[in-house]
C-alpha cells in the first residue's frame, strides 16, 4: 500500500504541485498525466526517495518511506528517463549487476529476461552498440527480472517499437494481476487489461 498525503514539490524556487494525496493498493495502476513540465518526473523521483519533497508524507505499508529506508527500497523497482545501463557491459552482465544490487540475484532468470525483451541476439555485444529502443528494452528487462512489488516507471514506452509496447503492456498486466503496483507516466496511449487504472493529473 502506497499512500501519499499532502505532498508538495518545489524545484529551484518554483512550486510544482502541492497538497497532492492519493493511495495505491495491490493490483492497481496509477497513471500520472499532465503536460510537459508539470512535474511528473519530479513526482516519481520523490516517490522513490531520490528527490526531497518540500512538504507532505509518503507512506509504504503505513510507515514513512524515508524512515523505512532500505526496507522500502527493497520492494521498489524504478526505471527513469535514464536507462541505467553500462555501455561496456553486455546486456546479460548489466542485468546481473542490477540483480546483485537489488539483493535478488537469480542468475538463471537472466537469460529468460533477455529472451522476454528480445535481446538474446545481442548477448555477446557491449550494450553501448544497442539502439535507443533496444537500450530502453534492456532497462525494462530489470522489471521482469527483479519481481519487486512496486514499479515506478517514467515514460516506459518512449523509443519502443509497436511490438515492444505490446510486450510491455503485457508485462504490466501480468504484474498487476499478481498483486503488484505500478506508478507510471506516459504521453503515449497504451492499454492494460485491467480495470484498476486511476489517474492523477498535474496542472501547470
Amino acid at each position, binding site marked *: 500500500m502506497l499512500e501519499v498525503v499532502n505532498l508538495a514539490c518545489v*524545484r*529551484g*524556487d*518554483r*512550486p510544482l504541485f502541492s497538497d497532492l494525496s492519493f493511495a495505491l493498493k495491490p493490483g492497481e495502476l496509477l497513471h500520472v498525466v499532465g503536460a510537459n513540465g508539470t512535474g511528473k518526473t519530479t513526482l516519481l523521483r520523490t516517490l522513490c526517495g531520490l528527490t*526531497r519533497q518540500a512538504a507532505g508524507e509518503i507512506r509504504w505499508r503505513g510507515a514513512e518511506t524515508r524512515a523505512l529506508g532500505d526496507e522500502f527500497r527493497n520492494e521498489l523497482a524504478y526505471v527513469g528517463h535514464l536507462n541505467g545501463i553500462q555501455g561496456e557491459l553486455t546486456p546479460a552482465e548489466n542485468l546481473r549487476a542490477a540483480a546483485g544490487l537489488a539483493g535478488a540475484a537469480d542468475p538463471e532468470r537472466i537469460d529468460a529476461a533477455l529472451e522476454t525483451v528480445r535481446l538474446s541476439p545481442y548477448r555477446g555485444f557491449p550494450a553501448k552498440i544497442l539502439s535507443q529502443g533496444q537500450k530502453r528494452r534492456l532497462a525494462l528487462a530489470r522489471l521482469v527480472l527483479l519481481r519487486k512489488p512496486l514499479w515506478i516507471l517514467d515514460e516506459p514506452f518512449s523509443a519502443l517499437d509497436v511490438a515492444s509496447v505490446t510486450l510491455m503492456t503485457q508485462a504490466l498486466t501480468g504484474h498487476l494481476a499478481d498483486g503488484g503496483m505500478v506508478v507510471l507516466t506516459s504521453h503515449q496511449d497504451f492499454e492494460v487489461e485491467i480495470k484498476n487504472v486511476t489517474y492523477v493529473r498535474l496542472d501547470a
Partner: protein
Amino acid sequence: MVEIYILIGMHKYASPKTFYPLAGTLIPWLAGATVLLLALGLYLGLFVAPPDYQQGETVRIMFIHVPAAWMSMFVYAVMAAAGAAALVWNVKLMETLASACAPIGASFTLLALITGSLWGKPMWGAWWVWDARLTSELILFFLYIGVMALRASIDDPRRAARAAAILALVGVVNIPVIHFSVEWWNTLHQPASVGRMGKPTIHLSILMPLLTMAVAFTFYFLTAALLRMRNEILEREKHTSWVQELVESRR
C-alpha cells in the same frame, strides 16, 4: 521540560519569516558597536601601545593580523557547525548562515595572509615561507574558495547548501592543524602566546588593543553575516506570501 520550551522558542526564531525582522532590528546596533570598537581598538593599537624594542613600529600590524587570523578559524567553525545543523535538522536558517559565513571567512583569511606577509618581509626577510602555519592558513583559504565555488556551481539553493555543508564538515580537520602546527613542527611563526592559561606572556598595553580588535572583528562578522542572511532569505523566499506582503508594504 525547560529545554523543550527553549527548543520550541528557538524554533520560532529559526523560521526565516520571524528571523528577518529580528535581524533587521539587530543590525544597526551591531554595526554601531563594530564602528565604536574598531575606533577604540585602532586608537589603542596605533597610539597607546608602545613600539616593540625589537620590531619597532611594524609590531602594530599585529593588531590586524592576529584578530583576522583568529576570525578566519572561528568563522570556519561557525560555518561548519551551521552546515551540520542544516544537514541534520534540515533548518533553512542554518543553511543561510553557513552560506553567509563563507565569503566573510574568506576575506578574514585573505586579510591574515596579506598582513602576515607584509609583516613577514621585515621580520623574516621574505614575503612568504613554506612554514606549517602559513601553509595550513593558505589551505584554509582554498577550502573557503572551494566551498564558495561549489555553492556557485549548483543552482538549486537547498542542494547547494547541503553540498557545501558536507564539504565544510570534511574540511574541519584543518582547523586544529592550523592551531597546533606551531607546536607540532618547529617553525618560523610565532607560537601561541595569548591562549595559554595562567601565564599571560604579553604586556597589558598590547593585550588590550588586541582583544578590543578581536571583539570588534567579531561584531563586524555578526553584522555582515546578518546582512547577507537577510539578502539570501529575501532571494530564496521571494515567492512566499510574507515576502510579497513585505514588498507591497514598502511600496
